[in-house]
């Protein structure tokens, strides 16, 4: 995410993977919550921009957002017991992402 030159293959897959890991380990995902949220936030700032004709880029951004949503999905399920305390600071990010889509 650090760089905007994109490798299209794995990033969405890695984000999905975060979601799967989160679902698997439940509340223990807390340890990684901070860094993963940061990554997801960075990922959500990537957009196809005004390049109308660049279908490859548009497709990539769509799959990336799918990955972001999968990750949020897993994290919310994982932390549902504790979500009252943890989701509050992040709620606005999720809302922001939803807006941009």
């Amino acid at each position: 995410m650090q760089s905007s030159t994109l490798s299209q293959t794995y990033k969405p897959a890695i984000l999905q993977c975060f979601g799967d890991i989160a679902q698997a380990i439940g509340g223990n995902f807390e340890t990684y919550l901070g860094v993963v949220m940061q990554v997801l936030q960075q990922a959500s700032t990537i957009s196809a921009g005004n390049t109308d004709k660049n279908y490859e880029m548009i497709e990539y951004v769509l799959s990336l957002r799918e990955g972001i949503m999968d990750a949020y999905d897993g994290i919310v399920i994982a932390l549902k017991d504790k979500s009252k305390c943890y989701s509050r600071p992040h709620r606005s990010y999720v809302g922001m992402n939803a807006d941009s889509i």
Partner: protein
Amino acid sequence: MMNVGQDQLATIAHLSTVIIDRLEKTVSMQNQVVSMDDKNTLEEMQTSLASVLMSIIQRLDKEIKPQADRIMQALLGILTASPSSSIVPDAIFGTVGSLANALEQDFTVYMDAFSPFLYTALGNEQEQQLCSLAIGLVSDIARSIGEQVLPYCDSFMNFLLNNLKVNSCYETRHKRFQPC
């Protein structure tokens, strides 16, 4: 293989023993190959055997359990012996993925032996194909064994986050990830 009827499952189970036998034989052959030709033939053979085994595992699902020990032993043997540049690990990872899906919780016992290979694959960005397979495999394993994945999570997360940073340098526009 995937569409075989319930009544033929015994045949398939028998077939799986034959395939595992063959796979075990290829492991010992690996030390004997000298020429390039032999090596290619052997790799082709291992890849094909591994994909047949993958289909069998998907069809038999939980019924594969009695064979699982032998399968994993053969697969790990091949992984140890083959260089990461060959295509064999790709096929092996696919088979391991289907085994993880089939065994669910019971796959945990193999994690200690298998995770080093997974880490190597995750850390090796030069082998894009293998790396993306490994990422899919982490997902599969996490879904299968649930909470038991916890001891391996630290390493997984480190490798994944690292991949996110590193792989921006490698352009892979023309490859698409295929979940296994």
